[in-house]
């Protein structure tokens, strides 16, 4: 069977669909205690479109490995980590997630550096877009990553999350997404 076609999420995705802990990957439900494995971090950034204007009410979905580089369904995966979270941008295009620093792992593609994936949906985006951000690591680890290697070298820095201080005792990383225009974020097709 052919998959159903994508359509834009439009400007009216209900605010009621966002729960208080949806942006928090470290909890499997709003009531659950956060996982105790790994280093909890905050990921913050801004989503902009052509001309650097903010994308308002855009939806971001983040998914990644747990602190040990495992995924949901693995026998030894962290049972207190959800592996997925959702956030939306405010009037200035800003978003925030709480998660753990993902572990490295190896799969059939090769040794994967510490990374998280983002799908972005928004008004005007007829298809969702996918990108992957990389946390600061040794140059050799990043250089060996087979997905980062697919990106033209001049655009690779656009996929690096930058350390941005601390907040409530957690390290903060910043990752901005530029949908179109100057320093446009590299997006992938899977």
């Amino acid at each position, binding site marked *: 069977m*052919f998959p159903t076609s994508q359509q834009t999420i439009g400007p*009216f995705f209900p*605010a009621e669909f966002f729960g208080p802990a949806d942006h928090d990957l470290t909890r*499997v439900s709003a009531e659950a205690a956060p996982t105790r494995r790994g280093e909890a971090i905050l990921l913050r950034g801004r989503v902009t479109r*052509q001309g650097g204007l903010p994308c308002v009410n855009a939806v971001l979905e983040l998914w*990644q490995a747990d602190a040990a580089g495992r995924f949901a369904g693995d026998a030894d995966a962290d049972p207190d980590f959800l592996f*997925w979270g959702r956030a939306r941008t405010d009037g200035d295009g800003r978003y925030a997630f709480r998660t753990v620093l993902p572990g490295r792992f190896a799969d059939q593609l090769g040794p994967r550096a510490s990374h998280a994936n983002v799908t972005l949906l928004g008004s005007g985006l007829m298809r969702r877009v996918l990108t992957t951000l990389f946390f600061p690591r040794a140059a050799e680890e990043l250089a060996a990553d087979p997905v980062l290697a697919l990106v033209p070298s001049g655009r690779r820095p656009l996929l690096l999350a930058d350390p941005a201080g601390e907040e409530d005792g957690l390290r903060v990383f910043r990752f901005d997404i530029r949908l179109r225009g100057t320093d446009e974020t590299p997006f992938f097709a*899977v």
Partner: protein
Amino acid sequence: MTALPEGIEPEVPVPGYPNTWTHTPAQPLLPRPAGRTEMAGPVRLHRKLVPGAVNLAEATPGRPAIGQLMQIGGRILDEAGRPVAGAVVELWQANAAGRYAHANDGSAAPLDPNFTGHGRALTDEDGRYAFTTIKPGAYAVPVQETWWRPPHLHFSVHGPSCLSRLVTQMYFPGEPLNALDRILNAIPDGAARSRMIARFLPPPSVGDFFLGFTHDIVLRGRHATPEA
């Protein structure tokens, strides 16, 4: 991952929809093979996205929404036609006057205090979902050269992996505005467009009180699970 046949995904930019010019990446997408991270997804996502009301037409008993009552249901399937059990299905829509209960909707059409216009369901073992709602109204898109959106439902579906994540819209059979809708017609392939139009169910199968429609949604991804 097998490449999709041409014409299934929308073409951008869409004429008359200026946001598609400013929000769509100008650089080509970088093709990328599917490894573990691409095939990963949450398990039991309904712990976080908690299923809620599936009767949008009478969220408060005794206070029905205005409009034509309808039932909409169907199955969430994978590309092999197998049911996707435990999928989170989110539905949102305009009210009978074509107005969304959303702060971003600046339309002058009236709100219906008894219609919030959104619901969330979890598919059963057969991949089935079902909602009771009202048929949404059409509305004009507030751009310089106005065009009308036909009545439609928005669906957001979370399947087994993040690759199978789908956000789409569903249309109604026999609506003259379908042929003029810029968003539906951004899908080049006619067969793909017709798969986005729900099927009308004859009254005996739904009873006298509801319009009945059925609509199956097919997700990408599961068949592409890499060999261990």
